[in-house]
């Protein structure tokens, strides 16, 4: 972890990196838990004190690195409001599930920021990781109540950015998605004292 930390001092970039790392692991975890890709393409990795699974599929890997490097820049510029991981039926493009990752920007430790002449937070890294672990465990537990995905599914990640944000190469504007008759479940949130991450899963309520 390339976190610049001296006496619990988290810089803006370090915080953005934590957020992006969380996004990487949570997206992979969802892909594994929801059975979008065969389980043998995932490799176990120890992170946040628990075993998490990362996809070995080169396509998914490249997609996520592209997504997260760009997202990190946007988070640094405070241009992203939320990221939505949508799971849709390939046959009819119907959105079956939506994982919203809401990002809120916080002030951090103002006194320390003034001292350092830079926006910094002073939260303990271990505490942040503890919070993230709780969220990851909740994500893993969602499988007990989320409906079964019994069709060929794929996923996409939509970035809800501010309107003044430029569209970089390889990116395009998409339509916002909405799930009719949706059930929302708010998972635990965590904060790096600079960014607060709320995870919400909404799914189509079974008739």
């Amino acid at each position, binding site marked *: 972890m390339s976190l610049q930390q001296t006496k619990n001092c988290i810089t803006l970039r370090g915080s953005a990196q934590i957020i992006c790392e969380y996004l990487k692991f949570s997206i992979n975890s969802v892909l594994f838990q929801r059975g979008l890709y065969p389980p043998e393409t995932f490799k176990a990795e120890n992170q946040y004190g628990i075993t998490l699974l990362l996809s070995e599929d080169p*396509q*998914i890997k490249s*997609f996520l690195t*592209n*997504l997260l490097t760009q997202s990190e820049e946007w988070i640094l510029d405070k241009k992203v*409001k939320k990221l939505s991981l*949508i799971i*849709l039926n*390939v*046959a009819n*493009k119907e959105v079956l599930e939506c994982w919203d990752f809401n990002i809120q920007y916080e002030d951090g430790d103002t006194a320390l920021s003034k001292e350092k002449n830079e926006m910094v937070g002073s939260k303990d890294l271990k505490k942040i990781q503890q919070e993230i672990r709780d969220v990851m465990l909740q994500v893993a537990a969602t499988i007990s109540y989320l409906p079964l995905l019994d069709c*060929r599914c*794929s*996923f*996409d*990640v*939509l*970035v*809800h*950015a*501010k*309107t003044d*944000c430029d*569209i970089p190469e*390889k*990116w*395009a*504007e*998409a*339509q*916002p998605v*909405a799930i*009719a*008759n*949706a059930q929302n479940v708010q998972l635990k949130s965590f904060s790096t004292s600079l960014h607060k991450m709320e995870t919400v899963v909404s799914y189509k309520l079974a008739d």
Partner: protein
Amino acid sequence: MINREYKLNVSQYKKMAKESDMSLYSDVLEPFRRVINTEPPKDKLSASTNLNFSDSTQSIKEGLSNLLTFGKRKSSIGSVDDVTPDKRLRRDSSGNGTTAPPSPWETKRLKIDLIAAKAQITKLESRVNHQHTIRKEMQILFEEEKASLIEQHKRDERAVSDMEDRLQLIRRREQELKDEFNTAAKEHKDLKANWDKEKTDLHKQIADLKDKLLEANVSNKDQISEMKKDMDELLQALEGAQSEVEMLKKELVKQTSRAEQCTQLKNQLEKQNFEFQQVTSKLKELEYERDSYKDWQTQSKTAQKRLCNMAELEKEVTRLRANERSLRDAICNKLLLEEQVHQLTSRVEALQPVQLELHEAKVKLSSVESQLESWMSAARAHGVESAGALRDALESALGAQITATADSTQAQSALAHLTEEVATLKYERDKATGKLNDLTTVRKNQESLIHRLQKRLLLVTRERDSYRQQLDCYEKELTVTLCGEEGAGSVALLSARVQQLEKSLQGYRDLIAAHDPHAHSKALESLRNEVTRWREEAEGARRDVTKLRTQRDLLTASLERIGPQTKVLHLTNNPAAEAQKQISKELEAAQEEIKKLKVALREGGAQADPEELQQMRQQLENSRIKLKRMKEEFTSSAQEYRDVCYMLLGYKIDRTGHKNYRISNMYAESSEEYLTFTLCDDGIEMVHTDYSETLGDLLDLHLHQHQSIPLFLSALTMELFTKTTIQHAIE
């Protein structure tokens, strides 16, 4: 370059030399300088100016400037040598001036000295300046020189490094070359060794070859001598053969002459044969003529005999004619008779049905008679003798029957009537039972009511009793109070009253308990009502929830639209898009395949794969040819096998039908002589034939005694062979 360096060195050396000179001077001047340093400001000023000046210049040049100043000082020292004591004197005098004023000569002299000194000072200063300028120029020159030299040095260094690199390169190359050389030398050595080896081998080979050559020469010589011997022999043989040939030629000539004679004889013989044949044909013709002549003779003889018998014949003719007439009459009669027969047969045919009818009538008659008999007997049994009496009896019986039937109809109607009545009665009974049931239920209700009322009554009576008791106790109280308020009985009274009150309380409680079930049922009902009400409410609430949810969705959607404006961005090559692309591709591919397959289906499976078909045909043709060849091979080998069997064993074996074999011997006299065998489960059996019956002895001996078919067969061949040979011998 070296030249320049040398120059530089020279100049440096010069400088050094100067410096050393200067140091010498400075050593000399050291005491004076001490004096000057201790001395007052004038000299100090100059020194200070000099020092200042030197300070402004570069530190490296400091020494040089100092030297210059020393030089100057030295020069000045030389000139001022004798002045300084004066000065000291003057100072001393100036220090003492207040005490003794100087004389005019002295002053004049002093003035002159002063002027001279001043002039000298100015001169010296100008010189100093000049020296300075020179020094500066020198300095500049030196610096330029130095810079150039440094550059030169750098270049040299670079060149040196380049050279070193090159040297290293060369060394490396040299090393490589050495290595190469070594390897080459090694190779050379190896090759040399190899070549030496090869050479020795080759030498050995050469020696071997030479030996071989020698051996070959020797053997050749031997062979040649042998061959020569052979040739001589052959030549001798040839000569013998030639002589023989000559002899044979002579013989040939003789033989040819003989042959000519033979051919002449042959021709003569042929001619004779031809003549002989002609003669024989003529003879045959003549014989034929003779035979026909003999026939004619016999015929003429018979004709003569017939002529002799003419009269008899005429008699016979008449007799035969009469015969003929009689026969013709007979024929006429026969025709008539035939006609009659025909008529009769037709009649018979016509009469046959009549006869049948007659038979039937006879049968009927017999049956009727039997019936009549039965009737008669029946009548007799009833005591009626005549037909009329029978009729009367019958009529009376019929009348009786009629009346009976009328009676029966009446009875039936009465029965129907009765059944109707029964049905109505049944209906009424059912009604009555229904009423009875109703009444019983009513009675039960009444009973329950009565029971309840009785309970009520009981309660009411109890109540009444309690009231009465109360009344009594009130009365008692009243009496007590009226009797006077003596405290003695008051406590007992009160206790009694308390007891009474407790009793009444108990009664109330009982009452309440009695009333309880009623209330309970009521409560239950109310609760049920409540439950239904709540259920309805829940239903309503659920409906509300669904409504609210849809509303919430709408509102969230609108909120997202209205709220903080955001752009939704995503990567163009996201997994979902790729998956969709893949699916569409798969779909297209599948559709194309379907089209292809459909087209193929329409064209027909046979045309779909002409190459394969061609291949298959070729294969079929090949296999046919193979089969044919195999058959040919089989037949030929079978034939060969049969021939070999025939030649070796002397029997020709033919298969005639299933498990039947016919064998005929090589020495058999005719094709009729054959034996037949059949293959059984437990061996082979001989079947009797015409030929086998003629071989009784052999059969007895070999089959019945020895029980060996091969022995029998070989014995037969032996016998036949001996027979044929004997025949030949006889011939």
